[in-house]
């Protein structure tokens, strides 16, 4: 269907197909009938809403296994809980690799958690594939050749906003509200990338908040009084919803850019008030499962069918489920391209050799591309605006 096997991929397949036994030694976690993949995810604790991603990954591989696996191998997917605690991630990752003997780690979640194991993974030459965080650092192929991200990085996203502003509103004054952590700070970096020398002139105020702050009211007041007419918000859903409502109450009407982490209709916009969010802009790369425009879209139909059969009862407005579907499908493609050579080296080589992969849950025109010098599989987004009722895509697909 959507999997376009590249010439190179097929060539690799042909070249390594014959000898199966030889690979058992240099391809840990691989047997004639199965391949073991490991994963860490916050299944418990405050961040456990993200557990939905690992659940979707699991369901996807169940589907693949029912369909006969990849190249005849079943996927044995082990997802362990790290409760979003970096030391726990180190422990669970070591367990997966050293005790459970997985071939590699797929879609481990959380910037601090995955940062904690990055050095270990690279020292032991175990692929850390399609990390489930938007930090930019997962694309550092030169220093960490065994680590790769998947989604557009926060930094890329912010740079796209900057690009749009330079084109459309070059005279604007920008205020930034960010969560004081990796995630929030990447937006500052991205704006710096995008605005370049004009950053100092255009960004008039930055304000940070902590996840223990009950409200962002004080920050909103500070930002409003800076006289900015553009607001870039890099906040997780709870504070994003507060921001949308507060600036509406303050009757401050900046052009509002919202991180795509916090654009869920159910978790952010409805609580904040649909009218309050009107005019808000974000960058999108996935199809929004709640958007009626995709009701008859073949790709989303495929996803819905998957949800019905393999995740019955799960929340179909939760975009973590589209995310898990998309990233797992990417994984499947890499395994297909690997053919019978499932050595860690070849897995990494094929992961860095994805060409124009079309994933049904991604927006039309956004495809997955990697190369030995591009470890950012998705680098494009399309802007969309909240009309007060739904998201409306506008402009064309923008790459940073």
């Amino acid at each position: 269907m959507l999997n376009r096997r590249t010439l190179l991929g097929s060539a690799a397949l042909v070249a390594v197909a014959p000898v199966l036994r030889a690979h058992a030694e240099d391809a840990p976690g691989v047997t004639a009938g199965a391949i073991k993949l490991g994963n860490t995810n916050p299944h418990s604790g405050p961040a456990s809403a993200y557990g939905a991603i690992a659940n979707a990954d699991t369901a996807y591989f169940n589907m693949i296994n029912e369909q006969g696996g990849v190249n005849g191998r079943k996927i044995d997917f082990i997802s362990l809980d790290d409760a979003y605690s970096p030391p726990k991630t180190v422990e669970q990752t070591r367990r997966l690799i050293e005790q459970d003997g997985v071939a590699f780690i797929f879609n481990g979640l959380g910037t601090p958690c995955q940062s904690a194991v990055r050095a270990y993974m690279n020292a032991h030459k175990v692929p850390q594939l399609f990390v489930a965080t938007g930090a930019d650092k997962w694309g550092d192929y030169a220093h960490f050749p065994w680590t790769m991200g998947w989604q557009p990085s926060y930094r890329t996203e912010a740079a796209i906003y900057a690009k749009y502003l330079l084109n459309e509103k070059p005279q604007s004054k920008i205020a930034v509200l960010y969560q004081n952590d990796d995630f929030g700070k990447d937006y500052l970096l991205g704006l710096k990338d995008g605005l370049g020398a004009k950053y100092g002139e255009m960004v008039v105020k930055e304000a940070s908040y902590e996840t223990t702050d009950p409200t962002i009211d004080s920050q909103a007041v500070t930002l409003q009084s800076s006289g900015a007419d553009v607001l870039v918000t890099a906040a997780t859903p709870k504070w994003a919803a507060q921001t949308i409502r507060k600036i509406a109450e303050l009757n401050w009407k900046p052009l509002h850019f919202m991180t795509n982490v916090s654009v869920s209709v159910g978790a952010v916009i409805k609580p904040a008030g649909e009218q309050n969010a009107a005019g808000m802009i974000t960058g999108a790369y996935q199809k929004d499962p709640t958007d009626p425009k995709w009701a008859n879209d073949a790709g989303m139909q495929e996803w819905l069918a998957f949800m019905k059969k393999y995740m019955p009862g799960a929340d179909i407005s939760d975009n973590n489920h589209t995310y898990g579907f998309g990233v797992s499908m990417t994984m499947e493609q890499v395994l297909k391209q690997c053919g019978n050579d499932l050595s860690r080296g070849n897995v990494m080589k094929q992961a860095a050799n994805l060409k124009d992969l079309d994933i049904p849950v991604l927006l039309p025109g956004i495809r997955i591309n990697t190369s030995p010098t591009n470890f950012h599989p998705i680098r494009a987004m399309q802007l969309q605006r909240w009309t007060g009722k739904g998201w409306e895509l506008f402009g064309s697909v923008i790459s940073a």
Partner: protein
Amino acid sequence: MIGMPGLMRLLGIAALVACGFLFSGYHLFQLAQTAVYAVAIMGLVVVTGTTGQVSLGHGAFYAVGAYATAILMTNFGWPFWATLPVAGIACAALGFAVGLPALRLSGSYLALVTFALAVAVPQMLRAKALEQLTGGVQGIVVTAPDVPFGLPLSQDQYLYLVTLAVAVLMFAFAHNILRGRTWRAMVALRDQPLAAEAAGIDIARIKTRAFAISALFTGIAGALAAIIVQFVAPDSFQPQLSIALFVGLVVGGAGSLAGAVIGAAFVEFAPLLAEQVNKNAPGVFYGALLVAILFVMPGGVAGGFRRLIAGFQWRRHKPPSMLAKQQGGTAHAE
């Protein structure tokens, strides 16, 4: 552990050392982590045993110790062993400052102040003013010390043995404190504060000193954690860590050092258990267990054992009428 002959103790240590050669990789990491938690919980035993109050914020000292080691090793090129005393003393000083106001008062003020400390410390570590040193939100990747003198050990083995050695030393240190005269005086103070006050003893100062020592223990544990995990970041030291150490203290038994070791094993291995009981809400498991232990075995597992053994001995040598009395006694320090 009381009165255990030296030979037994040596055998115990030998067995732990042997583990370094029986296990490898991931399991050694777990054992090393357990030793680290044990040292951290010893700190809690010291504070609860002497002041009768509890700390809900030792994760903060753990964090400061870990950062002290990470910063000195990474930014200043210090060897690991040299950072240990610094980490310990920094935490002792912090403990003194935090403990002083709270320990003058009765009630749960120490718990309150330390709880606030546990929540505030991750944010302080991210603060802009300290970013140069702490690496801000990115944290610091620590390079573990290499195996010295060409010893035929893997790095995991070496780290485990180093951790074990420090843990044994700290255990001995704590043991001496707890057996020494100062400790007994402190316990007396705890139990008879008015008498002590009347004797002109500045209880607050002595309690604060005990709290500083307890912070030192946990700081050293943090320093060890830095080289085992080889990464420190504000997110590694969320308040949940302090709570976990506290749960370990209660489960193991606040009255003894052996309890600290049992509690450490619990902190390290219980998540595996909790996952079996209720994957969605391990908190329910921990909370219910915590409450249950406080009701059924206020002395923790160690206290329970001791009572069992004591009961057994009494049964053999003493008339049964004495038995009830012995079992009714609550766990005492050491």
